[in-house]
């Protein structure tokens, strides 16, 4: 196993652990405002200190991890859940009208700057974590659809697919039973990468006030709120900033490591 994979895995485990931990326990209530205790440095009671409302920064980071994770998980789920079947369908009907439609629709969505459209969606339907999920999810669809179609097209030319057709299997059964399992590695790696992008997108949307709404903490909004206080309490910006960096770095390292591990070409070259 590569060092990248181990580091990435460890960071992701930390991220996941923080998110899960926040479900059962946080040192303090994240919504509890205690103005008298504002802008305190790290101490035994507040491990990372408090913010401008006297809320416990460590607790906010834990809950923020959960919000990031939930948004990214569902958004990537939407992308893969819709994108992969579309890609399989397009590959099965390659050259046909359906293929053309799916491919062009993909190009269309790709042509828009994704974050701008996400801002549009959340601005029209109102800022909330749910709308952020939908906005980010929509832009994950073409990524998965295109990847699936490209790889599936190559698979459709292979002998084992021909054998399956000779055996009388239809397009759907071939796609599900023969094509999809051979794409799994590729999709897992892509999902990891998309996951890190979704976390960044969620942070960006929260930063402009269109993500999870107060009092639910979110890393992006913590950054935005710390902005004017960067000179008096740089900790307020550093902590959520580092959290985002570590989570995204961990997911990218994990993705790279997994690709090295799972990609048949790389595997064969190593053997």
């Amino acid at each position, binding site marked *: 196993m590569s060092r990248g994979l181990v580091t990435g895995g460890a960071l992701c485990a930390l991220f996941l652990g923080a998110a899960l931990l926040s479900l059962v326990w946080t040192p303090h209530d994240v919504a509890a*405002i205690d*103005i008298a205790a504002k802008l305190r440095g790290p101490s035994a009671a507040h491990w990372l200190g408090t913010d401008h409302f006297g809320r416990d920064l460590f607790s906010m980071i834990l809950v923020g991890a959960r919000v990031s994770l939930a948004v990214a998980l569902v958004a990537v789920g939407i992308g893969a859940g819709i994108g992969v079947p579309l890609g399989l369908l397009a590959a099965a009907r390659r050259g046909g009208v359906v293929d053309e439609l799916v491919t062009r629709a993909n190009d269309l969505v790709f042509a828009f700057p994704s974050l701008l459209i996400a801002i549009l969606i959340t601005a029209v339907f109102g800022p909330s974590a749910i709308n952020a999920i939908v906005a980010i999810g929509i832009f994950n669809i073409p990524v998965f659809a295109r990847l699936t179609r490209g790889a599936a097209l190559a698979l459709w030319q292979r002998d084992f697919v021909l054998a399956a057709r000779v055996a009388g299997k239809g397009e759907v059964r071939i796609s599900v039973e023969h094509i999809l399992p051979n794409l799994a590695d590729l999709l897992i790696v892509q999902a990891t990468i998309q996951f890190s992008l979704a976390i960044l997108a969620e942070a960006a949307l929260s930063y402009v006030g269109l993500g999870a*709404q107060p009092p639910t903490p979110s890393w992006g909004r913590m950054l935005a709120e710390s902005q*004017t206080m960067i000179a008096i309490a740089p900790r307020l910006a550093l902590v959520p900033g580092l959290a985002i960096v570590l989570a995204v770095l961990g997911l990218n390292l994990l993705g790279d490591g997994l690709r090295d591990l799972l990609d048949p070409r790389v595997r064969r070259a190593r053997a």
Partner: protein
Amino acid sequence: MKRFLLGLALALAAGAAGAAPRADIVIGMQLEPPHLDPTAGAAAAIDEVTYANVFEGLTRFGPDGEVEPDLAESWEISDDGLSWVFHLRPGVKFQDGTPFSADDVAFSIERAMEAESQNAQKGLFDGIASVNVIDDQTVEIALDVPKSSLLSSLAWGDAVMVSPATAEKNRTEPVGTGPFSFSNWVQGDRIELVRNPDYWGAPAKLDKVTFKFISDPTAAYAAVMAGDVDAFPVFPAPENLEQFKADPRFLVMVGTTEGETILAMNNARAPFDDIRVREAVAHAIDRAAIIDGAMFGYGVPIGSHFPPHNPAYEDLTALSAHDPEKAKALLAEAGHAGDISVTLTLPPPSYARRGGEIVAAQLRAVGIDVAIANVEWAQWLEQVFTNHDYDLTIVAHTEPNDIDIYARDDYYFGYHDPVLKALWDGYQQVTDAADQRELLRAMQERIAGRYVNGFLFQLAKTGVADKRIKGLWINAPTPANDMTAVEWTE
């Protein structure tokens, strides 16, 4: 030797010129005005650029809110209080060279009062029956009913004097009688004014004033620190003031404003149509925490809709002291057991956004479930102010002497109270200062006792300026940056 002396003289002259104080200034503002006609818009930014600089009225507000003569030198009131005769200052010219006369007064006031006028404060002119020109320098304002607030109404930015020749173009090329003429507007960046050489009064000390618009508080902080702006009279981030205070280059100015910051409740809608619920909200609020947390300590608690620096102020904060237990008891008495779920709509300023988070936490502590909805100003004006579609909101009412909003029928509070209306009508009739104070106190008590809104704090004017600048207003009795007396000391 001669050449040496000449060189020395030149060097000295150059040195002296270099040491002469600067004659230009850059003023930072957070919001850019939508246009520059103060008689056709409510945006405070319009007045912050034009009031007392480009435009002047018959009367004006001084630096501490006192009403002073401006284009009217003096006036007489008839015994029945229905006829006011104003004597205009001689020799006043508009910046385009046309002389200012009584006809312009009649034009300006009639224009503001006409049905299709876009004046944002038409209420200022209520009760005016007609404006009669007596001669070039004399004009009579005839009233239907006595109006003790006439002089202060005429001092507002919405009541400035405009010229019939240029009035229609004031939105983009304002022409008034003030000490500065409009020079240039680079949309999205800055507005430049230059000294009016033909000004009737003491000429402005600066040659040029630039208003620069910086909406982001972090960028505003950087601009002041870097010296890109010389003064930021209404600095948007109170948390940065400590650093300005610690820096010997700057002077931090903390003054008063007319901005009563309130937690407005929709009195026309359940559950806030029940006075017990409103009283519970009032007791759930901890003003000290809000001022400290949202404004970093800048602000004075208020117990009614009235500024503490006004002589008629009465401290009513005890009536709605922080008492969560009492709030819970009141809610229980009103038949609510944790079943109240409301939305708190917050406009962009940090007093609202930050204050809103604290208020929401305090209301949750007594069992009122509050969801926060952050909106932009345009949406706030449409949804809350115009359509009255809201439960709770936080906003600062920055107009001076605006307690009459509680006597208005179609105001967004949804509060209808014949008692208060009678008090306000009475206030308009009396001219004696002591009687006026009595009625103002009675109105404060009435709205505090009816718990119309949650009264939070009086917004402070927190500004920062280069220490060498003098003559800037410390207080903000009306939105304005009067630059007439501003100068550099070295």
